């Protein structure tokens, strides 16, 4: 990371909000499509509200939060998979989403064929995939299984293959969503090392439930609760606050159930 570009904002959001449309009845979406200009047939369900975020080139940001707090939706919005419902979003640079590793895998096809498709989906040209193929195979380290159908792979092998593809995309912004939970310690270390080296030229957005990973990889942490940013700043400070809140909540539930 050179200091001259470090001030450049690559992801910028202002009052970003995302609402899903909840329909009371299954047929209501049809009414919404036909008469939506006249009346609203859904209840908005806000998963993200008023997110103000500036990510600078070379930043690596850890995102913390309970299940269902909106972390993954935030990442999806930043990657451009789904549009925000209001607010402003600006993303500059090639984004590589590592949201669900192996989502594009076809169980019937061999690892080799899945690399061709996975690479294309990540935006690589066929020639690029072919050129990088040996390097991908080496990173995955699954040996002769490369020619076997993916349905015979273990969960860890799938993760290895999928991460190996992601590691060869040459993105400017890497968005990782709890992707490393599977995989053995050695492979996790390999991935973390790779992310570490990626961080030197790229920007990282990283969702994790492991405080150690966030502390090691990130220079800033963001804690999201109920779709809002509750606090952000120095990773160790945010992690401590987050863990204290988690402990309090557990306590609260406990006390509540006892009093009943």
């Amino acid at each position: 990371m050179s200091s001259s570009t470090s001030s450049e904002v690559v992801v910028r959001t202002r009052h970003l909000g995302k609402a899903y449309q909840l329909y009371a009845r299954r047929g209501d979406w049809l009414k919404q499509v036909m008469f939506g200009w006249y009346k609203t047939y859904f209840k908005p369900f806000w998963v993200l509200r008023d997110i103000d975020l500036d990510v600078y080139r070379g930043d690596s940001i850890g995102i913390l939060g309970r299940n269902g707090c909106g972390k993954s939706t935030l990442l999806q919005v930043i990657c451009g998979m789904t549009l925000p419902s209001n607010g402003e979003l600006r993303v500059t640079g090639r984004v590589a989403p590592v949201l669900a590793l192996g989502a594009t895998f076809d169980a019937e096809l061999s690892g080799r064929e899945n690399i061709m498709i996975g690479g294309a989906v990540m935006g690589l040209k066929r020639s690029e995939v072919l050129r990088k193929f040996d390097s991908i195979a080496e990173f995955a380290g699954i040996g002769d299984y490369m020619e076997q159908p993916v349905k015979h792979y273990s969960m860890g092998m799938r993760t290895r293959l999928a991460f190996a593809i992601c590691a060869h995309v040459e993105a400017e912004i890497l968005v990782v969503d709890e992707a490393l939970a599977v995989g053995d310690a050695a492979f996790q270390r390999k991935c973390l090392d790779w992310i570490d080296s990626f961080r030197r030229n790229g920007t990282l957005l990283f969702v994790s439930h492991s405080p150690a990973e966030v502390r090691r990889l990130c220079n800033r942490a963001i804690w999201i609760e109920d779709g809002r940013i509750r606090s952000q700043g120095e990773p160790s400070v945010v992690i401590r606050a987050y863990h204290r809140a988690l402990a309090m909540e557990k306590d609260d539930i406990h006390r509540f159930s006892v009093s009943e």
Partner: protein
Amino acid sequence: MPSVKVVNGKQIVVEALDPSQRLKRFLAKPFLQMWYNQDIVLAILRRELRVRFTGSAGGWFWAVVAPLFAIGVYTFAFTTNLQMPFAEAAASKRVAYALFIFSGLIVFNFFSEMAFRSPMLLHEYAHFIKQTIFPSDMLAVISTLRAATYTGIGTIVMLICVVLVTGRLPWTVVLVPLIFVPLSAFLMGLAWFMCAVGAFTRDAGYLMINVVPLFMFMTPVFFSHTSMSFPYDVLIYLNALTAYVEAIRDVVLVGKFPNPLVILWMLATSIFTFYFGYWFFDRYRNVIVDVI
């Protein structure tokens, strides 16, 4: 460097465009998208064809022998029933009738394959659409290309049969690819429309299962529009497939140039359907991601 700017849920296009530029952009957009995403289209198409041809034990059997078998059954059913006009015809006539059905089925099977699949298309690729940055409009293109491949195989088999039976091939067969271009565009537009509707509701799929067999008899597969009485022989052209069936027959079996009016109608319906389908899909694509 790619840059996305979204304000209040709407993507902002920075430059202001006058209407003629906007029209130009609208007309060029599907093709630019195809060009831009060609690697992904080809990678998935290759995968789908490989699954079809090497993943099943039958492989080529399903593409070549099964249609021939179907045509045999149809020919038998329609020519041995004494109520039917072809029943008393000589054997050579029956073979001619088999070819007649074959040419109609090639067009119709192209349509029915697309019609059955399109409503489920986005569901089939839901994990691509939700978890990767995926050009969902390319799915209709991929499925059209896939169906066109089978249609191409069927056409080659048909041409071989024509040579075997009649011993000659009219020069007009060179026009066959030119008929398949508007047909593919027509079906691609239909696929865009139906896969967008199908993303919202499964009813579209059920509707197709019921409607497609009816269409088989509303398209001149087993008969010719010339054998129909006055208002109907024109009305059947409201089904756009009629034009393609008749054009293919003129070109392959009769060996004459299709009626210019038919060609005009073919082009008009296909261009309209192509752009309408893309416009509709593009309009709802951002909603589709959230409902699928």
